[in-house]
């Protein structure tokens, strides 16, 4: 149990997927403009990560049976794509405004390396099923946390007086770097 908590904290804060491992930057920058859509995006990623790792675990064991672990990337992407499609349908059905505000970034979760990264981490570290689930949950929550925090930062950026050359993407990237620096403070907790 203690180990699971450690994995959860490690995945969400210390090795934060966006701010420490620099995965999923595309969606991070794309959907953090508004607080609302960033929460929606984060929860969609949590959903996809959780269920993808639930399925990739037996898939990887089966791949091991037929001695084809080298195909894990292809298999994992297939599983992730499946859950992205499911998430997209569910959001379109139940929360249409969120579907509109996420736009192209929702199907792009398929190629969000953070999701694949979580699945690959699970097999690389030889996690058990419970550990895998906790790890992907932590990674997803870390992603949501990074998005929500950064959405707050960007709202401040909107009203600040930025030099003309830095307006837009440059200022956003600099701000992302500073937020990322602050997460370095978690290093060494566990």
């Amino acid at each position, binding site marked *: 149990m203690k180990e699971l908590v450690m994995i959860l904290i490690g995945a969400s804060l210390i090795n934060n997927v966006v701010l420490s491992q620099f995965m999923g930057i595309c969606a991070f920058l794309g959907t953090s403009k508004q607080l609302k859509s960033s929460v929606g995006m984060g929860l969609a990623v949590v959903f996809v990560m959780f269920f993808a790792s639930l399925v990739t675990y037996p898939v990887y064991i089966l791949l091991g049976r*037929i001695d*084809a672990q080298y195909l894990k990337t292809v298999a994992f992407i*297939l599983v992730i794509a*499946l859950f992205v499609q499911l998430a997209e*349908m569910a959001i*379109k059905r139940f929360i249409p*405004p969120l579907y*509109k505000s996420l736009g192209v970034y929702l199907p792009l979760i398929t190629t969000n390396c953070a999701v694949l990264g979580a699945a690959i981490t699970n097999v690389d570290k030889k996690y058990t099923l419970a550990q895998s689930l906790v790890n992907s949950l932590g990674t997803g929550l870390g992603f949501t946390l990074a998005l929500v925090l950064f959405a707050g930062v960007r709202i401040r950026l909107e*009203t600040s007086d930025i030099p003309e050359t830095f307006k837009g993407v440059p200022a956003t990237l600099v701000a992302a770097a500073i937020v990322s620096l602050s997460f370095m403070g978690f290093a060494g907790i566990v």
Partner: protein
Amino acid sequence: MSIIEPIIFFSALGLGAGVLLAAASKIFYVKTDERVEKISAALPGINCGACGFSGCEGYASAVVNEGAALNLCKTGGAEAAAAISEVMGVDAGESVPEKAVVRCKGDCEAATVKYDFEGVKSCAAAEIFYSGFKKCTSGCLGLGDCIKVCPQGAISIKGGIAVVDERKCVGCGICVRECPNGLIAVRPVTNKVDYNCMSKDSAKNTLAACKNGCIGCRQCERVCPEHAVKVENNHAEVDYMLCTSCGKCAGVCKRRVISVR
């Protein structure tokens, strides 16, 4: 190591995923009226919200399901109204295109400045601070809050005041809500006369604050053959329903408040 097993494995995985998705698409099926899709396609798709519904798709579904009027799309104008009426099989009614106008001529030359403003570059922020940095409390501050929200990029700052480019403006009216001084009005293109001052200050104060401010002299009210102009609170206002755009008022205005397009 055989190639057969991975092929079988991936086929099975793909088939399983396919079956699951097919089932899910039945469960999560969103029932859409095909008329909604047709109307959505006919609308401009910029989601300006001027119709009062949440975006173009929202308006399309409101037309079909809630019986909303067919000529509410200001951006699409008569063209969109005709397309919608074709889909719905009902006459659309008349739709006059509208354009936004910034009702202030107090540019850098004309207006007197009260203090140097060095805060956040936003009209709303400047307005909080002693009603803006211009001596005239109702003038355009030219910091571009309207520019930020304009979906068409039709507004620019010229000589310190916001100016609408009529060729780009679609009359959606988003900027109207944004201006802290309520200077922007949306009026039909058929009306050629604009009254470009919103100041309700006394004549003495307006004279001191701006060269182009309305002082309520009532020349325009007197000369108007249609009695469309009313001066109240030192401020002239035209009734677009009565105005015939004859332009006589612009001829008598000594303060360059009235412009004819």
